[in-house]
């Protein structure tokens, strides 16, 4: 909402700098977004008088003007405009001036003659013919009698281009502030100044409105009040300057006196007005009713609209003439030959207008106001204001009276006056009489321990609302601050601590954290080659996504990771090692909320990384979580992964993690030209299985005995299998078994490999004997042989 300070001045005289005004209103609850001065760009443009004008000797279209610009000298200016005459008063951009476009004007020569500036058109002042309808746009703006013709006067002052416009952000609970009067009321209360409201007075007119207009409201639940008045012998003409410049300051283009009056009243009171031609009202009868399903109307914008019975229309005896509160019909406008008009000032149910505007896809200035729920009490006042302006502008002959159908009168909101409650709730100590005074300043009545809210305050319904009014005029910043009393103990939950541990470990392993969108493209599932029948394709789908790329909630965070790896690869970053503690959303059926589970996704590419780099990190994470008892099995059918380079970590028969190289086809889909490795850890299961309890084990007192054993095994024998077989039989003294060498080659034999382990034996009580160790080693060798692995000589 824009506020013209000039217009505001009609209701409250506030003297303060613009900056202070903005701050004061902001702190009392009407947030100022910005303020600007009209014509602020213009510099050194003044009123000049054309003393003489003659043709340029070397041009057939240029004119040489002698201008009195009030500087004491008569200056020479060349113009190409053809509408300047001797004796005209014109805007003169002097040497070193700035016009609306921001261009600087300096003296120069035109066809050999000096020109000490420029005469300006409307456009060069930032205006159009809407602002000065008597002027032409493709010529010099010849000042009319509505301008101050003092020679040398700043042009902005002369033509009234000197208002200050303050832009407010009005919250949805305060539609009353979408008006000059509403903001004037807030201003007066903020500055403790009198508010000079004016009661419109309509002078006696002609005839009787009841002979021209009849109003029936069929849907009283949606149309609370409808006031109509009639103006005959309409004289369509431009509005006077004061009205035009106020509309302009509000960002509304002046059209003609009738249209301008409807806009003027809307801005002044916040009440949308509608004017339509009585000729097109069949039977002179306004019927406010629900539309019939499928009924059509062509609206002012020329579009044919099909209506439903949930929409309300203003109809005559035959057809709708307007969609109530939204837009008029095509014949309802003011035309050149319009003679008699009806002014409508009505109040509709906000929700109903909102639904209709939304369904029809046409939100208008009127609907935006109506939908916030306006106040029915002022419909008649606003209508009188329009009629008063008609008489003031001599724009027609007002027909006596008004048709006022107040179908559903609004009950005033009455609340008990509880100053103590407010003091306690806010934490202040404001005496009752001061609280009452604050409320009265903004239109409340306080009497006999009862507060009556003014009708325009549709937002007041509870004592807390009253407290807010007190608090904001008392000043939020005057409320004392207090530390929260009482000791409260905050602790992290076990899960929160666990997540912290996972993230710390991931970073410690060299992975950087990433954050990616939770929604992905459904095509991602194809990109990671997810089988058609995979349950992961059953995802939570957004009905109204921004685009396909962000249209489903991810059931796996692998695509997010691959996208990031791909982006880094495309940007020529030579390596990336990343993790995301990602939420995935697993559908529980259309009408249920999904499970939101966490998975830890690790991803990397780069010269020195292999499958084992990533596997080492997964092992570290499992170890940090106290999970030692797991199996790793080759996973050949995970579609996003390389069939020969992917392992599945199994705990108690269930996958806890998968770790592998990404399938080349998937790499290609993500534009990754290097081998990339991804692991996904099921955090929910990991948390279930984790054991973070640590118990101290005494450091060994007795020496260890070690043995190195090298076996020749089949090339496809999983080392882990061999290792487990050995450690299973090696007895209680086996402290550790570790792979230390693996190789293939001719000396080993075709399809064979050499696998060497280091076994460390130790007793906590004594030094082991060779016999004890030898017997364990014997068993180990036997177990290996059972798997087809032979001890190397």
């Amino acid at each position: 909402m824009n506020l013209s300070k000039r217009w505001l001045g009609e209701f409250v005289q506030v003297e303060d700098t613009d900056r202070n005004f903005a701050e004061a209103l902001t702190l009392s609850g009407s947030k100022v977004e910005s303020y600007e001065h009209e014509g602020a760009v213009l510099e050194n443009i003044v009123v000049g008088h054309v003393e003489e004008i003659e043709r340029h000797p070397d041009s057939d279209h240029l004119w040489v003007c002698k201008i009195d610009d009030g500087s004491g000298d008569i200056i020479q200016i060349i113009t190409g405009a053809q509408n300047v005459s001797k004796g005209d008063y014109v805007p003169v951009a002097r040497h070193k001036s700035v016009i609306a476009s921001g261009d600087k004007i300096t003296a120069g020569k035109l066809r050999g003659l000096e020109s000490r500036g420029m005469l300006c058109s409307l456009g060069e002042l930032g205006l159009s013919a809407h602002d000065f309808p008597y002027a032409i746009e493709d010529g010099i703006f010849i000042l009319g009698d509505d301008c101050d013709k003092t020679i040398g006067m700043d042009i902005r002052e002369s033509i009234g281009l000197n208002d200050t416009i303050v832009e407010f952000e009005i919250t949805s609970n305060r539609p009353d502030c979408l008006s000059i009067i509403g903001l004037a009321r807030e201003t007066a209360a903020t500055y403790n100044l009198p508010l000079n409201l004016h009661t419109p007075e309509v002078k006696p007119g002609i005839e009787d409105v009841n002979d021209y207009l009849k109003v029936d409201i069929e849907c009283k639940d949606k149309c609370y009040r409808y006031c109509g008045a009639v103006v005959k012998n309409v004289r369509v003409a431009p509005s006077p300057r004061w009205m035009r410049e106020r509309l302009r300051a509000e960002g509304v283009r002046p059209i003609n006196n009738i249209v301008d009056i409807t806009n003027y009243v809307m801005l002044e009171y916040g009440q949308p007005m509608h004017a339509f031609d009585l000729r097109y009202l069949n039977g002179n009868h306004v019927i406010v009713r629900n539309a019939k399903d499928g009924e059509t109307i062509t609206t002012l914008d020329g579009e044919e609209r099909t209506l439903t019975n949930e929409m309300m229309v203003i109809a005559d005896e035959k057809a709708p003439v307007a969609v109530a509160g939204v837009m008029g019909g095509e014949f309802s406008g003011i035309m050149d030959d319009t003679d008699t008009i009806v002014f409508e000032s009505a109040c509709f149910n906000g929700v109903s207008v909102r639904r209709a505007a939304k369904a029809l896809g046409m939100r208008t200035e009127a609907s935006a106001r109506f939908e916030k729920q306006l106040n029915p009490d002022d419909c008649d006042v606003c209508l009188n204001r329009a009629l008063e302006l008609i008489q003031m502008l001599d724009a027609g002959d007002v027909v006596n009276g008004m048709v006022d159908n107040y179908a559903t009168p609004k009950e005033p909101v009455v609340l008990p006056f509880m100053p103590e409650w407010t003091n306690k709730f806010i934490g202040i100590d404001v005496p009752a009489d001061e609280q009452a005074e604050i409320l009265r300043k903004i239109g409340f009545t306080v009497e006999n321990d009862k507060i009556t809210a003014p009708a325009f305050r549709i937002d007041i319904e509870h004592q807390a609302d009253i407290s807010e009014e007190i608090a904001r005029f008392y000043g939020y910043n005057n409320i004392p601050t207090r530390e929260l009393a009482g000791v409260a103990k905050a602790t992290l939950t076990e899960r929160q601590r666990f997540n912290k541990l996972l993230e710390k470990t991931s970073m410690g392993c060299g992975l950087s954290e990433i954050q990616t969108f939770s929604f992905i493209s459904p095509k991602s599932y194809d990109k990671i080659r997810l089988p058609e029948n995979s349950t992961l394709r059953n995802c939570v789908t957004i009905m109204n996504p921004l685009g396909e790329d962000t249209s489903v909630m991810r059931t796996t965070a692998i695509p997010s990771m691959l996208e990031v790896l791909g982006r880094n690869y495309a940007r020529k970053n030579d390596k990336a090692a990343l993790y995301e503690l990602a939420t995935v959303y697993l559908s529980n059926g259309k009408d249920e909320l999904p499970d939101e589970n966490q998975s830890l996704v690790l991803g990397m590419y780069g010269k020195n990384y292999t499958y084992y780099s990533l596997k080492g990190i997964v092992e570290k994470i499992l170890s940090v979580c106290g999970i030692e008892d797991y199996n790793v099995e080759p996973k050949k059918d995970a579609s996003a992964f390389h069939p020969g380079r992917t392992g599945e970590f199994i705990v108690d028969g269930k996958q806890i993690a998968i770790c592998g190289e990404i399938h080349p086809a998937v790499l290609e889909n993500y534009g990754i030209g290097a081998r990339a490795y991804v692991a996904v850890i099921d955090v929910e299961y990991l948390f279930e299985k984790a054991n973070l309890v640590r118990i101290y084990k005494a450091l060994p007192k007795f020496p260890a005995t070690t043995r190195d054993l090298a076996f020749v095994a089949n090339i496809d024998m999983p080392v882990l299998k061999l290792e487990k077989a050995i450690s299973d039989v090696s007895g209680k003294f086996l402290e550790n078994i570790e792979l230390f060498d693996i190789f293939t080659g001719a000396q080993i034999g075709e399809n064979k490999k050499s696998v060497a382990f280091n076994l460390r034996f130790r007793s906590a009580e004594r030094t082991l004997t060779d016999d004890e160790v030898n017997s364990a080693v014997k068993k180990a060798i036997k177990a290996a042989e059972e798997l087809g692995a032979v001890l190397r000589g």
Partner: protein
Amino acid sequence: MRQQLEEIRKNAEAALKATNSLEELDAARVKYLGKKGELTAVLKQMGGLSAEERPIIGQVANDVREYIQNELDERISELKAAQQEAKLLTETIDVTLPGEPCEVGNRHPLSIVLDEVKEIFQGMGFDIISGPEVELDYYNFEALNIPKDHPARDTQDTFYITDNILLRTQTSPCQIRAMEERKPPLRVISPGRVYRSDAVDATHSPLFHQIEGLVVDEGITMSDLKGTLDTLAKKLYGPETKTRFRPHHFPFTEPSCEVDVSCFKCGGVGCSMCKGEGWVEILGAGMVHPKVLKNGGIDPEKYSGFAFGLGLERLVMFRFGLDDMRMLYENDVRFLEQF
């Protein structure tokens, strides 16, 4: 003999000084102090001395031995030090060569600031809770006093899953869930992802993070709200930071406010960051609306509370001087490595 001994002392002293290696030194030691050395040779003649002279000369001889031994030890340590010095010089390396890279990952800037905010609130006794991102319309809107067709729904363009299920547009639904699950006194914050149908640009994203806060107890007032948020601002931006509370409107709080902090770049005099205002908006807050308390199963006659919501991305952008929010979700490693 006395003279002889003095002679040996002098000669030995000179000889030791002249040595340049441990080998030479050892030879000198043998020469003077060895079993067949000069001192021993002199001492062997002691037998020819009188009983009176013997202890005196014996004393002198011991002094000379001790003297030479001391000189010898001193010279040994001098030579050892010189030798080590020479060896160290040969071991000189180029200390300006780069160190071996130490591969530790980086925390995402969003998490860095979130961790900080969490710590501040934990210090004030707030538990951290979370709620679903795919949420019921009831929790996201209805229970927060935003019925269907409420104009406030316009400002939060919502992604819908079904007519009743949506992606939460704010973390405020956690208020209701917290009230349902816990009993007062209640102090919680609930950070998390929220979703609004805004196209991506430098300052908008369809997905961003909020941190919701809720306090409910007997006798909670707006003073408590102000005190808590003032503490937050000072802990985030330093003890000199001032706060400014502006009236605002949220359907689920009454009174409501927006909170500005004195611009942390210019200190409040006005700069490009604060658009010349000296203040930067960081959060919205208010006293929990009695209807909302009731919806959460809490008796508004007995209890009152306040709630607030912070936008995490904004804080992160301020903290790191980041001017484009998209960087946060692109995860370029050159970006991540900066934090």
